[in-house]
């Protein structure tokens, strides 16, 4: 029951956290900040709006937003909450988690190619290129987790990690940093992407949504907000200490997610966006961290890879 409530809480809080990022940026820029609830008004506005669908598109364009949203919510069901676990679980379910996010992305990409726009083609190209790097690194991270815990269920991996050896602190640190990079990449934030730009030639995620309007756009925007929160939730799993009362743990989880979004806001305030040709270098940092954590685990458990 509590898992269902928490899942609903994630769905309802996802837009607010994006509001937090905007708030941080506005305060840094010295502007009067919009309310953190602004993203809800924006979604509401989109739900009320009519829709224009380009005549060059096929049915793929129309079904993609619904599939995208559904796939992201499906991935959320496998995401473990600290101490409580995930709604759905079975052995090797982390593959389902990764590939339902993959499915969401697949439909986002083919729908944007469906429009035939040269901008959207470039955006799709970038999105796929960068995803290949992130996805590989993510699987190395999951493999490492499975290696430490001898578990293949997403939920069990996180629970068992907390009870294992003394080097876990180091591993957790590496995980947090590399997942934070994943959060920036998947959430299309600075320095990989710029969610506020109006320049089609530089966009990655936004450009793929250019042809969407109304409810379908709302679905796409909402799905990407949930996806960010899912990754933030994964990070917060590594930040909560052991043996706390469950309410305190959940409170800490909320606070840590808030802090993660605060960090995203600060990154956006303080640094400029990387040149697109250098983005892979930045993303390979995540791969490097993932491989390092794997090497550390291999060293401590087996004295090296044999």
């Amino acid at each position, binding site marked *: 029951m509590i898992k269902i409530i928490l899942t609903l809480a994630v769905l309802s809080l996802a837009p607010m956290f994006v509001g937090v990022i905007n708030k941080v940026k506005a305060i840094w820029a*010295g502007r009067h900040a919009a309310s953190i609830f602004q993203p809800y008004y924006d979604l509401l506005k989109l739900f009320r709006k009519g829709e224009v669908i380009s005549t060059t598109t096929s049915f793929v364009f129309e079904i993609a937003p619904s599939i995208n949203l559904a796939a992201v919510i499906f991935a959320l069901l496998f995401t473990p909450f600290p101490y409580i676990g995930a709604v759905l679980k079975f052995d090797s379910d982390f593959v389902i988690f990764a590939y339902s996010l993959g499915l969401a992305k697949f439909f986002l990409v083919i729908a944007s190619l469906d429009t035939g726009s040269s901008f959207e083609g*470039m955006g799709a190209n970038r999105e796929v290129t960068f995803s290949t790097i992130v996805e590989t690194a993510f699987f190395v991270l999951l493999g490492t987790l499975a290696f430490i815990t001898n578990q293949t269920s997403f939920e069990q991996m996180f629970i068992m990690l907390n009870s294992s050896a003394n080097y876990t602190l180091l591993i957790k640190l590496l995980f947090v940093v590399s997942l934070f990079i994943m959060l920036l990449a998947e959430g299309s934030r600075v320095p990989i992407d710029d969610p506020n730009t109006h320049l089609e030639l530089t966009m990655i995620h936004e450009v793929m949504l250019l042809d969407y309007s109304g409810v379908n756009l709302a679905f796409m925007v909402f799905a990407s907000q949930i996806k960010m929160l899912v990754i933030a939730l994964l990070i917060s799993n590594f930040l909560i200490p052991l043996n706390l009362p469950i309410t305190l743990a959940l409170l800490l989880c909320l606070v840590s997610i808030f802090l993660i979004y605060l960090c995203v806001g600060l990154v956006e305030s303080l640094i400029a966006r990387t040149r697109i040709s250098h983005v892979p270098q930045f993303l390979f940092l995540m791969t490097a961290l993932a491989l390092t954590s794997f090497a550390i685990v291999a060293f401590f458990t087996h004295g090296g890879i044999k």
Partner: protein
Amino acid sequence: MNWVEIKNLQNLSLDKIKYVDFSEFRESIIIKIHEGKRLVNLFGMQEQDIVRIFCILAEDELSKLFVLSSSLRPGEAFASITNEVPSAHLFERELSEQFGIIPDGHPWLKPVRQGIAGVDQTQRQYDFFKMSGSEVHEVAVGPIHAGIIEPGHFRFSAHGEIIHNLEIQLGFQHRGVEKLFLQNNDLFYQTKLAESIAGDSVIAHSGTFIRAIESLMNIDISKRIKIIRLIMLELERIAVHLGDLAAISNDIAYLTGNSIFGALRTSVINTTMSICGNRFGRNMMKIGGVNFDIDSERAKFLLETINRVEKETVTAAEAMFSSASVMERLEKTGIVSKEIAHSIGMVGMAARASGVSIDARVDHPFGAYEFFPIHKLTLDSGDVFARAYIRFVEIQQSTKIINDLMEIYTDGNHDGKIGEMQKNSFVVSITEGWRGEIVHCIITDETGKIKKIKIKDPSFNNWFALALAVREQGISDFPLCNKSFNLSYCGFDL
């Protein structure tokens, strides 16, 4: 030597301009350019059934201008000089567009603004360079853009993320400014028109126009009025440079720079407003003087503001230019080499960022610069960084100029007499606006009215530099390169 030597703002009787045969005219231009002169303007004027063509060259180090003229009949072909003098390419396209004369051998003859004269507009072909290959793609951007930007069409031939060629087609803002000048002889109307040539260079364009008229009227302008005009021009430069630094920051998602420079720009344009009632300096300039005085109280406020703005700009710019993430985007992006800048005739701040030593405030002094010499500032790298950094340096320079001039500034009159314009005369007025060299050439008829005005905004020279700067660059860096030049569409389209 057939060339008549003049100076900036020196009026000249039309009869004194030598009239030579076109082949001699052509040879002479090529020789002069190869000697190191710079092509300032090449334009035609309809005279009964012929097109009289004027060429203006500059020898910047000696503050000299040279004029020569020739003529062609409409529809006549002539041997193009573009292959010998690349900077003439757009002037020849313009001549062909306006008078139907055909530059034979021009490498890429197509309309500049509204279409070749005498060619059916509905049959007009929009030719663009073609690139072919299995992974080559074309990206067409505009003429309608996202946000509040002027219209212009950009056609990229790209291979993956790399731009191999960019072709820029403008003309969507063509209002017929040069013709509008001839429709109404009222000088007040014409001054307003000059203010509207490019909305970000109001003081520069209106100043260029009124100095040309004052030269034709042979009137002396008091030192004090010249100083007021110069202060307004430098305020315009500071404001636009700050706005550009904010826009460059915005394009690379550098939030700090965007908000700080944007706020500082507001302080500066509000100072302009406190003087003349308009943030962009409209209504400030008038023939014989200025419409609004800068009295000692306003002068005090002005100095306080710009000195505070400069201090804060230095802090923000030092943070910006020492930030690794910013420098990674700016450095080695959109390079225009000195050789290219020189051969295509780039002008202004963008040319100085490529190491070309050209600044009309020094080369062809006008207004208060006649008695107040300044230094030319150049940078070498020619990349986006250089074009951003030179803005920062020029903001400091302009602040210093205003401060120094305020020391010799006294209260007094801000209005002067006007006179009759000299008949059958020719004048070249050059101003260094924030973007670069603005040139207005005015020719009067036998009654002393304007018969021909030829306006050249620096954008006319520099758009082609943008096209060259983005070659072999990532297509996602195009908006940044574009912003680093910040060229005017309406200044080009006229």
